[in-house]
């Protein structure tokens, strides 16, 4: 179990490194520059040692000046190499970040409705922001520093051995201990830090929910209970943060202390050697300065190991999205949907969102081109699901759905959906201008067509009255639209693509009678020559349909025109009588 986890971690890590492949060249070049500036840093210290010996011995001012100038020259070269290294690796880091984000977004665009049913927006956002951030920080910067620090440790240690191998042995005695401690720290802190992030996300969720639903909280005078709930979440964040901080308070000072042990030992031993003449004073200087140079990288090494682990964990979550199979994909060599009048046929269609919980059973239904079918039935009877199969938002579990004689799974989704206009119950508008929202499916459509669609959907009037008409940005500066207005914009959005098939999911539920009548008038116009599926609760909407289909528990229990159904379907009779009441009421 632990082993296979390790293996999968290693696999993820290697896959992450794959993002660096396009940057092999610059990676190699920046490594060369890093090696150069590293050598410069060592050279400065070696030269310092020589200056000291010079001062002790010959006291030749010319040689002293020469050495000092050498230090300055090395300093300039080193700085120049650093500039180059930073420019190159910075560009590469940003490139990796760009590529990852681009890949993720491209994937998100292709994932099916089923995926979005299963995943909450918040979770996906945390993949796209927090996880991506961790990975790109590691690949972009962490890895470079990791390499640089490893380089420092190896090269400085090598130089130490060249100077005086016995001293070097003492100096590196604590190295494994430091790296091991740093690693242990990152091992222990990682799960805690991850939990902190998780709990912070909880805090955000509770806050968001309470604020979006503030009217409900206030209506039921439940402020105290929400406060309690919130404090519980923020208390958990506190507890975990303190735990993380306690680890930090133990390990970080310990890691600072460990090199001091080696330094003390070296001071004593080197002191003895200088006194006995085994080491020059300049050598003593250089040795101690070099040793000083090791402190930070050793401490960081463990940290970068931790970074690598976090990046791997985040990478795993990132790849979860990238690897998510496209349940609804275009088959190879898919053709565009051929032209046709818009005949829709369901053939023995079964469907389940989750295996074992069927939602639709053996649906057989034919919609003649240009006809209007009303789907009625109780909430949860499968009306919306049935309609969602036409634009292939989901794939059937059995049977098939045909548009103009072609199975929807055999044509490109793009060509299919171009011909299906969907107006959902709870329309989502983007924070863009009204115009862009209406022209969403055909961004470069001329303004006249946008306005024509808005007119047909009875939206033109109120849009004109908005502060900046069609250019008004929705959601900005408190400009919000009522439910009815949003719905009318959604209708216009569907009409402007001029689809063969129109799907209306109870789109007129929450508007007043006058508006509904207006929308209905617009719809009658829009539905002409289109095959339309209306999911309806009201008799007034049902009245638009040529055929009514009654669904119950995922099965068609009745179908026919209104007068036929009045005879055969108790469900329809109930709706009809109910709607009739309205008629009689007004007639009184």
């Amino acid at each position: 179990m632990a082993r296979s986890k390790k293996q999968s971690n290693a696999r993820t890590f290697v896959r992450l490194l794959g993002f660096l492949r396009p940057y092999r060249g610059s990676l190699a070049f920046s490594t060369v520059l890093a090696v150069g500036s590293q050598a410069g840093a060592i050279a400065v210290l070696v030269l310092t040692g020589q200056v000291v010996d010079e001062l002790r011995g010959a006291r030749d001012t010319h040689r002293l000046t020469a050495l000092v100038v050498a230090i300055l020259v090395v300093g300039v070269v080193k700085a120049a190499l650093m500039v180059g290294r930073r420019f190159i690796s910075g560009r590469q880091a940003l490139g990796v970040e760009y590529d990852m984000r681009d890949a993720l977004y491209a994937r998100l665009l292709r994932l099916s409705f089923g995926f979005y049913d299963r995943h909450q927006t918040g979770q996906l956002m945390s993949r796209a922001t927090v996880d991506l951030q961790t990975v790109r920080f590691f690949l972009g910067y962490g890895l470079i520093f990791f390499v640089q620090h490893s380089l420092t440790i190896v090269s400085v240690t090598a130089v130490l051995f060249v100077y005086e191998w016995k001293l070097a042995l003492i100096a590196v005695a604590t190295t494994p201990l430091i790296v091991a401690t740093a690693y242990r720290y990152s091992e222990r802190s990682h799960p805690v830090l991850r939990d902190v992030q998780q709990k912070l996300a909880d805090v955000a969720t509770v806050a968001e929910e309470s604020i979006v639903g503030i009217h409900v909280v206030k209506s039921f005078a439940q402020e105290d209970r929400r406060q309690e709930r919130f404090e519980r979440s923020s208390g958990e964040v506190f507890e975990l943060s303190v735990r993380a901080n306690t680890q930090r308070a133990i390990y970080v000072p310990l890691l600072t202390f460990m090199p001091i042990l080696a330094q003390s030992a070296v001071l004593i031993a080197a002191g003895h050697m200088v006194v006995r003449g085994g080491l020059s004073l300049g050598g003593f200087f250089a040795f101690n300065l070099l040793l000083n140079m090791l402190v930070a990288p050793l401490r960081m090494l463990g940290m970068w190991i931790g970074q690598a682990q976090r990046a791997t964990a985040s990478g795993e979550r990132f790849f979860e999205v990238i690897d998510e199979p496209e349940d609804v994909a275009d088959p190879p060599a898919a053709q565009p949907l051929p032209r046709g009048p818009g005949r829709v046929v369901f053939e023995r269609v079964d469907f389940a969102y989750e295996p074992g919980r069927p939602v639709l059973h053996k649906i057989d239904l034919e919609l003649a081109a240009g006809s209007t079918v009303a789907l009625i039935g109780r909430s949860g009877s499968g009306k919306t699901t049935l309609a969602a199969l036409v634009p292939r938002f989901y794939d059937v579990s059995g049977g098939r759905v045909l548009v103009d004689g072609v199975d929807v799974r055999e044509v490109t989704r793009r060509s299919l959906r171009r011909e299906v206009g969907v107006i959902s119950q709870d329309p989502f508008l983007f924070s863009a201008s009204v115009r862009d929202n209406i022209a969403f499916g055909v961004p470069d459509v001329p303004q006249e067509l946008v306005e024509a669609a808005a007119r047909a959907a009875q939206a033109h009037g109120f849009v004109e009255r908005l502060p900046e008409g069609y250019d008004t940005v929705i959601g900005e500066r408190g400009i919000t639209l009522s439910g009815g207005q949003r719905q009318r914009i959604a209708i216009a959005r569907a009409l402007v693509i001029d689809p063969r098939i129109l799907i209306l999911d109870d789109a007129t539920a929450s508007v007043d009678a006058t508006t509904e009548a207006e929308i209905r008038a617009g719809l009658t116009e829009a539905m002409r020559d289109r095959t339309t599926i209306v999911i309806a609760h009201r008799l007034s909407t049902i009245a638009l349909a040529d055929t009514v289909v009654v669904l119950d528990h995922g099965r068609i229990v009745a179908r026919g025109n209104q007068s036929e159904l009045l005879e055969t379907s108790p469900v329809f009779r109930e709706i009809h009588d109910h709607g009739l009441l309205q008629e009689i009421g007004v007639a009184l």
Partner: protein
Amino acid sequence: MKVWQAGSHLSDERGARVADWSWRRTRRRLGLLVRLTLPYRWRTALAVVSLLAFTVVGLAPPYLAKLAVDKGIRQHDLHALALIVGAFLATGVATLALSSAQTYQTGWVGERVLADLRNRLFGHLQQLSLGYFERNRTGAIISRITNDVEALDQLVTDGVTSLVQNTLLLVGTAVVLLFLDWRLALATLTIVPLVALATAWFRIRSNRAYRRVRERIGLVTATLAEDIAGMRVVQSFTREPVNQEGFRGINDRYREANYETVVLNGVYFPVVDFLSSLATAIVLGYGGYLLIHHEVTIGTLLAFTLYLANFFDPVQQLSQLYNTFLSAIAALDKIMEVLEEEPEVVDAPGAMALPRAAGNVRLEHVRFGYGDLPEVLHDIDLDIPAGTTVALVGQTGAGKSTIAKLLARFYDPRDGRITVDGHDLRDVTQHSLRRQLGIVPQEGFLFAGTVAENIAFGRPDASRADVEEAAEAVGADDWIRELENGYDTELGERGFRLSLGQRQLLAFARALLADPRILILDEATSSVDIGTERKIEQGMHRLFAGRTAFVIAHRLSTIRDADLIVVLEDGGVVEQGTHAELISRRGVYTSLYGDWAAHVA
């Protein structure tokens, strides 16, 4: 209706522009921080003391190295050397203990203060009136509790420590150098103005650059959030290629902005590094000259080189801090803005609890407008006897929902008054009023949790039988039982698996379970399927029995059975009476519902 967009809080850009640097404002900021820290003053004091001690002890090792050379090695005094190294080791142990204590205490206090601040912010937000939430974008409000508090986190846990420690280290090092040898120190410290100059340039440029980066990453995040939330629409309308293209543009603009920071960092840090080489050269050149003339010891040179190795770290760290510091202050200002926001609707001093209401509601010459916007209700006069079912009808924007909000005292009228059983709403506590109200809004808002928990929202202690009874009463019991875990089914993000109609029914059941004296239905069943609605309408008399009910609806079938129908037009009452009375009058009501009936064939 508020447009809620998932993840919009993430898009709120964390601006690092601090508008007000006045001493008054600064004092207010400090005041808040001090008030938050005050309960933990002993821990804070401990943290400060250990921080100071730890920094001072940290200055010792290079000096000890000098002693080791001058007093130990060069004098060939190995005993002294051992003593000095012993002292060196002792400072290490002291640093270990002190920095451990300091990290722990600072972290503890910092996290506690942030948790307190979060709780306080949340509590304060809940006290604010509905108007505040309608004026401000949800995303921006949530961002106060999440992003802004987290921006403070960096300052509180690392920033302050780093600021104090690095400043001390910088000053302390300079002092020690001057003390070791003032000539050499002055020569070396000529570098400081150069470092300061480079840092100032870097600070100004990078502040601008980072602001641009934040703006552009904000746009990236906002686009992602909105596109994920609206992905179904994106795919329905086959916008994938257009969106991909657009996102590339945004992603690329972010990369461009970020590259500027790479360039700035890529110049600044090597320059500082070169300056440190320059300092080494000065120490060795000038120090060597002094040494040749026996003015300094070799140990002093060693101490200088070691001090200099640590001298440039604080400079760089402090320059890094500048941005953290700015964004933390900007965040703090935004948080304070919320905390200083006064609720518009507050309990009057000495407000009493509303006794169990019979439900006689009167609106007397009520006038109202939102904020400083034009009036939307003009002189409304209504007398609703206890137990009456009132239907409010009229076109969208006639003022129906506004009346409902006034009844719940989400707003106070500009003029006139509203009474329940003779008590002015402004004289009773909001809590006692709302406990006796049941409001069912159109959106059917649900919380994360189970179906049962959502129904029992207003009465958490309700028994399962009561919950089921309420669900049964609104005709929701059947389909709830068919959910995978029945009443214990967890509803995801705002009940996303349920249809709008189902959400409305749960909200309705929730209101009923609270057993309100006054029930307000604001388009509460507009999306419910007709069979269920029918059932509700049939049971209406039972549901409404003994309660005063306000029903806002468009549908005739819901309206016609009301005891009283109030027709609103442009914020005024134009007709009232029973269905039969209003129909026979052939006025506004008939014209409204004539429309409807004409299409029912």
